[in-house]
């Protein structure tokens, strides 16, 4: 078990990789994990937890409780609520687009229990389609939307969506017309994005709950359209 040293820092960084281990062009950070085998990553996490526990910094019980509390409040339904409210209330939509952190607080959503996150909503229109990615690692608004799908973290998605986003979206079954501008948002720093999708046709008489059921996690990433589902039309 590695003994924690005085130079240990809880921030992300080059804690365990020497320069020669780093893939060329890597942004460091979670990037290395993507190409590391699951077993090796698990061993590394186990060693880190053992070191922190041994040093009295934390405990298994505290880690479990923290994760459970965190995940209990984080899921795509949060994003769906925001979108549904924005579709029904133009003033709220304007506030979401101007200052998403302040606007979601109106719905009782609070990201401050996790790391401070600056949230930004990007709106799809008849002429603009947005899609989010983190090419360097896997940045994603987890505190709001829950864990990202594994394909969001895949090297194929991360490398291709900035280079051929229209082709990637076609493969997702979300083809975007030639008259629609494609905007890709690469979350390289401290902002986290979600997409405000277009309201589906045929939902004029839907209430907020029915509208929220139209908004999937993929729609919040921008790789799917919002759509009427059995859960929303009933």
């Amino acid at each position: 078990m590695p003994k924690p040293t005085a130079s240990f820092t809880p921030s992300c960084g080059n804690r365990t990789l020497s320069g020669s281990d780093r893939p060329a062009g890597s942004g460091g950070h979670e990037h290395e994990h993507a190409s590391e085998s699951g077993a090796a990553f698990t061993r590394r996490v186990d060693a880190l937890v053992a070191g922190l526990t041994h040093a009295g910094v934390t405990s298994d019980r505290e880690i479990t409780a923290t994760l459970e509390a965190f995940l209990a409040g984080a899921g795509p339904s949060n994003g769906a609520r925001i979108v549904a409210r924005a579709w029904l209330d133009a003033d709220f939509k304007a506030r979401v687009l101007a200052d998403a952190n302040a606007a979601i607080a109106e719905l009782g959503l609070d990201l401050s229990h996790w790391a401070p996150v600056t949230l930004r909503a990007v709106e799809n229109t008849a002429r603009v389609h947005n899609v989010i990615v983190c090419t360097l690692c896997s940045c994603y608004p987890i505190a709001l939307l829950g864990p990202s799908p594994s394909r969001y973290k895949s090297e194929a998605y991360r490398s291709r969506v900035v280079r051929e986003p229209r082709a990637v979206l076609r493969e997702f079954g979300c083809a975007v017309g030639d008259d629609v501008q494609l905007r890709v948002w690469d979350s390289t720093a401290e902002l986290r994005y979600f997409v405000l999708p277009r309201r589906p046709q045929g939902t004029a008489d839907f209430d907020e709950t029915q509208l929220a059921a139209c908004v999937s996690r993929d729609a919040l990433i921008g790789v799917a359209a919002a759509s009427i589902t059995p859960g929303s039309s009933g």
Partner: protein
Amino acid sequence: MKLAAGDRVMTSARNPAGHYRLPRYLRGKPGIVEALHGRYLLADERAAGRDVSEPLYTVAFAARDLWEEDAEADCIVHAELWESYLVGL
């Protein structure tokens, strides 16, 4: 350097050792400042245990400036970049 929305910039082509959050595909590329976000801790320094903040910007890149003839039509790629990654044009 103080940049404003709409300013034209060129990204650094540096290739430093260690943590560096300017993606390789955006190095040495022209872009336009799309938004200002105030000062944020520079991740590269933070990785080394130092707290250094810099202005952070969203910069928009036309796909044709990134991929030339391989670019898809009418695509824009945005990224958050710290001030030291940028030179004003």
